[in-house]
């Protein structure tokens, strides 16, 4: 009985010591952990603070830069749209330039067209005046004007291109085109729709009839492939 009581005492005592040991060890452990965790010297703290501030600063800058980037991107998009528009305009301009060059005779032109040959009439002993069967400038003017009116894109006389400021002079038996003398027969080549050009020249009472009346040999051919060289030094 006494022994049992002593045993019981020991059990209770061991329980108490268990709790005591647990509390002691736990407290010690906890304090050690706490001391380990925030082991920070002033210097380290300052460093951390500085780094943190730097980070905040960086983030701020990043945000600003991001905003700027967005704005710039919008700008770029706008510019791109404008550029696309400009490119369209440029291509239109380029086409126009090509057309104008064609009219000015700066480029080589190739295409369908007609070839008109004007030759002096055969010698006629009945005719006193030799001028009555020679090709004169106004004949050529007539032909050229008729061709231009009918939509010819480019015209050349004896292979020499005409421009908007060309001049044609009658100079005895020769005709001066832009200072270059051309003898008869005169070959007028025009690029355009051959059917339209030839029918306009062949109108009854039109250019052909008038020229034939003036004793000029008029020959009209449709050609599929006419090449007109650009004006030299033009």
């Amino acid at each position, binding site marked *: 009985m006494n022994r049992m009581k002593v045993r019981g*005492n*020991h*059990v*209770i*005592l*061991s*329980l*108490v*010591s*268990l*709790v*005591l*040991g*647990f*509390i*002691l*060890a*736990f*407290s*010690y*452990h*906890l*304090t050690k952990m*706490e001391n380990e965790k925030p082991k920070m010297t002033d210097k380290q703290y300052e460093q951390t603070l500085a780094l943190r501030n730097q980070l905040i600063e960086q983030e701020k800058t990043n945000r600003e830069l991001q905003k700027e980037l967005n704005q710039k991107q919008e700008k770029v998009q706008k510019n791109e749209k404008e550029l696309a528009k400009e490119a369209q305009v440029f291509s239109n301009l380029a086409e126009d330039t090509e057309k104008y060059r064609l009219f000015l005779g700066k480029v080589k032109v190739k295409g369908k067209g007609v070839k008109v040959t004007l030759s002096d009439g055969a010698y006629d002993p009945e005719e006193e005046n030799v001028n009555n069967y020679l090709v004169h400038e106004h004949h050529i003017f007539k032909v050229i004007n008729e061709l231009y009116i009918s939509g010819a894109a480019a015209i050349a006389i004896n292979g020499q291109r005409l421009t908007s400021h060309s001049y044609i002079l009658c100079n005895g038996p020769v005709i001066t085109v832009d200072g270059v003398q051309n003898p008869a027969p005169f070959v007028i080549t025009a690029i355009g729709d051959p059917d339209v050009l030839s029918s306009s020249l062949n109108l009854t009472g039109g250019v052909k009839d008038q020229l034939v009346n003036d004793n000029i040999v008029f020959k009209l051919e449709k050609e599929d492939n006419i090449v007109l060289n650009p004006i030299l030094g033009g």
Partner: protein
Amino acid sequence: MWLPVAGLIIGIILGLLTEIRIPEEYSNYLSIAVLAAFDTLFGGIRAYLQNIYDEKVFVSGFFFNIILAASLAFLGVHLGVDLYLAAIFAFGVRLFQNIAVIRRILLTKWSTNKEKLEKS
């Protein structure tokens, strides 16, 4: 005799191995509890040496003091009054008194033993 020692060792091991984390503001209560436990322990030893040891008083005092000290600290934190200082003061004073009494008793015992040895 070995059972309480084994209990102590097991308790220490358990305490060292537990990975329970309590919030920092509660670590105050734990230190108060430790102080209360020490106080009761030395009180018990003193009572034992003075032959007035009562197991019921010791065990109930041990647990009751721990809980009381912890709840006092808890109350103090929530009231904004540093009540745990009262606990520290009371337990600290009693701890020193108890240790002093134990020392005197041990000294007296030692000297009487010595006298007895010399006499015999």
